[in-house]
């Protein structure tokens, strides 16, 4: 699994689809199933956090304000 700081929402979604497809196939063993579930849970948390990050309401600022904030 990609590290959390390089993981993107779309990569997480893609991986989650793959995990669910694997689980749905019913071919994974117990250990794999549990590991996939755990990984899937982490991905869901990551995606939820990403959605939460853009779910608090629009924040508008001018470019110079953004630059100032980043430099502070």
């Amino acid at each position, binding site marked *: 699994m990609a590290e959390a700081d390089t993981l993107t929402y779309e990569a997480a979604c893609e991986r*989650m689809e793959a995990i669910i497809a694997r689980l749905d196939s019913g071919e994974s063993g117990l250990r794999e199933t549990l590991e996939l579930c755990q990984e899937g849970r982490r991905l869901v948390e990551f995606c939820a956090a990403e959605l939460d990050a853009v779910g608090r309401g629009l924040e508008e600022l001018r470019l110079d304000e953004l630059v100032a904030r980043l430099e502070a």
Partner: protein
Amino acid sequence: MPERRPAGIPGSELTGPFPVGVYAARLRERLRGFARVQVFGEVFGFKAGRAKVWFELRDASGALPCSMWREDFEALGIPAPADGVQVVVAGGCDYYPGSRTASPSFSFAVGALHVAGEGDLLAQLERLRRALHAEGLFEPQKRLPRPQLPRTIGVVCGEHGKARDDILAGLRRRGWGGRVAWAFAPVQDRHAAPAVTRALQDLAACAEVEAIVVARGGGSLADLFAFCDETLCRTVALLRVPVIASVGHHTDRTLLDDVAAVSCSTPTHAAEAAVPLDCGAARTALAGQARRLERQGRRALVERARILVRLSRAPAAHVERHRTRLHQQLRELRAAARRRVAHESSGNHGAAVALSRRARAAATARASRERQAATHAAALVRLAALDRRRRDLDRLALALAAHDPQRTLERGYALVEDSAGEPVTSAAAARGQLSLTVRLHDGRVPVRPEPPVP
């Protein structure tokens, strides 16, 4: 072969008649002799033939059919002008005299053509477009990965334009509530292109900015020309951040639209393209995925737990099965032993009985042999007595038969009986009966005695 010249029209004062081919050739010479000039007007009905292109030049008071060698036109590097495009043409009159099999035609033979006004801008634009395309500058932006869910997007637009509101509306429609960094810039005068270019560079310099929207409402082509600026377009083509362009309407395609990662017809659409993910739908989908994961995880555990339980029960069940079988075998063994013992003991008993029976039989045989001699003598005496008794019995039977009433009846006698079946042996007794029965050898006849005669 020269044709025979017919007679002229009687009474006509005009010279001739001349052969038409000669006249047409002379006409072409005269027309070609006209001064070569520049003419301007609006193009109408442009069409390309195999060797030439054709169009009319029109204005309010007149029109002129024009032709141009096709290779001359293509050398200009401009698209086929649409109706109404202002052009200046340079050339002179020409006449195609035709022949017996071809129609004649007049046209203004164009040697040079220049698109005027907006048309001129379009021609420049087309040249620049070709140049950028040839350099492959339309591609880099399209190859940039576009984040489905950016946290920060940059927007370049006019500070007070309608585009700003449209973008906010588009972002809200996505259910997106991230951070918008505005980089306001003039969007229509000669300051626009450098200002927009600088704004784009500044936004792209912020690591947080994941996508940039450049937006402005519709305007004249001259207004939108700022977004066809070569420096601006080259800058955008090489930015590390995907740029979503929404400049003017879809009919006015600027060069920015060509180099940008995405080109949209309205600022609202541009905002939606900057945030490809519909956040509301994504939340619902994510909840569904989380539920599926939980369900799958639980199911995998429960199923295996069930198998484990079954497996853990198996040895006990196995032992129990064996125990039951063992008990049964034990019972069968006991029963078999009992049967065998009983069988063996009954065999012994039989032998003993047989032995004693044989001993008894031997003793009995001896006694019986002794008895037999005596019995034989006694039997001879008994046989003689029996014979005698049989003879006495025969005699008695004969005597008895002689006295049988039935025998008497058979000889013609009749027996009179009363109602009880008793023999009536006197007339007096017969008179006293109400009814009598006369018994003959072959049956009975009921009779009634007559009443006594007085």
